[in-house]
């Protein structure tokens, strides 16, 4: 309710006093900080639950037609296709019980999708309408896997030359690099004690913000950090995000966005938020999270402050700078849309 309406309501005097005060005093909820603040719309999706059910909503991408694609592990429709107003346009996919990672890549002008399936232990490349083009099984050639079950891919990233990077985020935490044909090149990361190792390598993206130094940004979720590597897997640095269980990094323009599954201070309690980093990889905004504060270069612990999200699992920034948040284990709810506040 806007302020003038509040005054009108209050002027009804006695009547106003009979209504719960928090309704009357309610102000518009704006989430985030600095120049990255958003209005939240939890009722964006117009999908009919009976017709287009979801289970976990894992990841989202936008195609070149401007449509919004959602990947869910509900095998009645693994991919839901929306317009930006939340209307369902299409759906497909019944063969991805462990649908987890969804990445879109422009290949010679065509939209291509890469799906990571946790249960099938595979990465599947499809056309935008779901026709399977390539299936990558567990990377036997790497020599570090004895069987498919050890490999639980969570995310892919595709380099401009077509190289495919797969993050084995629920398996052995290796990043496996293939060429565009799906031929094994190398692997790096993995579990261990050095800075170059990963713990829950849940997401990965190719960062082209610095044109002369392209790199990979990888989630090390249990460590509450992103780690940067060059495109050959050489470790560069760690971006510490204390307190934040960061899912995949998503780059749009100069900013890096990420869903934070939960806060470290309150695990198992729907304590997620969304974090936004600038081009220097400094946190500038947390949606429903604590105001980012640095002591020198040291980021203070971050945590959820407003229970607007439950377990955010991915963010998408569309061509109009609107944000969509897909959530894991959140009562089979559809994605949330957020509009930037200018």
């Amino acid at each position, binding site marked *: 309710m806007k302020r003038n309406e509040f005054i009108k309501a209050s002027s009804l005097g006695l009547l106003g006093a009979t*209504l719960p005060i928090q309704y009357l005093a309610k102000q518009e909820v704006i989430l985030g900080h600095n120049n990255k603040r958003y209005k939240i719309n939890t009722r964006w999706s117009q999908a009919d639950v009976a017709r287009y059910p979801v289970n976990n909503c894992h990841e989202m991408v936008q195609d070149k037609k401007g449509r919004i694609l959602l990947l869910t592990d509900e095998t009645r429709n693994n991919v839901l296709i929306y317009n930006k107003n939340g209307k369902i346009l299409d759906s497909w996919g019944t063969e991805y019980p462990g649908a987890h990672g969804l990445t879109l890549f422009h290949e010679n002008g065509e939209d291509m999708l890469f799906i990571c399936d946790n249960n099938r232990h595979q990465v599947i490349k499809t056309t935008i309408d779901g026709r399977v083009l390539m299936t990558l099984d567990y990377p036997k050639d790497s020599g570090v896997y004895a069987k498919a079950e050890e490999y639980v891919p969570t995310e892919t990233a595709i380099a401009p030359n077509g190289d495919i990077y797969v993050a084995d985020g629920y398996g052995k935490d290796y990043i496996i690099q293939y060429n565009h044909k799906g031929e094994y090149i190398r692997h790096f990361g993995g579990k261990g004690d050095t800075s170059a190792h990963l713990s829950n390598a849940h997401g990965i993206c190719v960062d082209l913000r610095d044109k002369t130094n392209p790199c990979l940004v990888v989630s090390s979720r249990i460590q509450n950090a992103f780690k940067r590597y060059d495109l050959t897997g050489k470790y560069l640095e760690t971006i510490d995000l204390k307190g934040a269980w960061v899912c995949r990094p998503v780059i749009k323009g100069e900013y890096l966005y990420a869903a934070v599954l939960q806060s470290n201070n309150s695990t*198992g309690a729907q304590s997620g938020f969304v974090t936004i980093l600038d081009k220097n990889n400094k946190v500038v905004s947390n949606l429903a999270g604590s105001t980012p504060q640095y002591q020198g270069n040291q980021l203070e612990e971050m945590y959820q402050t407003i229970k607007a999200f439950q377990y955010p699992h991915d963010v998408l920034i569309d061509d109009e700078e609107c944000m969509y948040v897909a959530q894991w284990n959140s009562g089979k709810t559809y994605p949330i849309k957020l509009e930037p506040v200018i």
Partner: protein
Amino acid sequence: MKIWILPTLLLLYTVSTNAQDNFQLARPLLQYPSVFFTNEVAVEMAFAEPNTQIRYTLDGQEPTENAPLYTQPVRITKGFTTVKARVFSKVYKPSDVIEATFIKDGLPIESLENTAPNQKYKGTGAMTLIDNKGGSTNLSSKTWLGFQKDTVEIVMHLHKKEKVKNVLVNLLRDYGSWIFLPKKIEVYAFKNDAFQLVDNKAFKQDNKVSGAACVPIVFALKSGIKTDQLKIQLHLVKQIPDWHAGKGNKSWIFIDEVKAY
């Protein structure tokens, strides 16, 4: 009174069409080196969200909007003080309550033997349960020993024979990580050349609680017992109940400290 009906309906309509999600605040952070202390402990509270206030109590009451406002670290000197804190604002619903109970040192414990913990959760070694460190809800904290055995046994050797009135064991409950309170805990005191049962407690698996919490359990030994050895036996919930995702599996027991008073 009928005159009020129309405006009431109109107002309710206005409110409902403008209604937006009435979000709740998350709980504030409680920060402290350990819930176990010798002389005093300073408890800091944090909540980096503009236009909110942290209010707290030390007397066990639920904090209301009238409870003391947090402005600086709170010093605790009295054992078994429970700090309860909550955040309020004009825009959002008040947070749930976060609480921690601060526990003062007990009788000197010379040494201790316990069932070997799981290799993944072995704390900092033999002294983990008597090092005065703990009270974190993070199961990966090195203050915890984690067990997945049907019976966990802890024997405490006191410095000398003393009159023991209470025994304490601090446990973690974190259903999301399959950590339950034991089905039953028994406390024995060594007297007349044998361990004799002096108190016991049984626990139900309450499915209404969520998130992780430290749960200090205190046993009262009737009128005190003169002894120099105490034994605590914890019996695992061998089958996780049906309402839980891990139903039928073995649960875990997590302990970070034991004390005698």
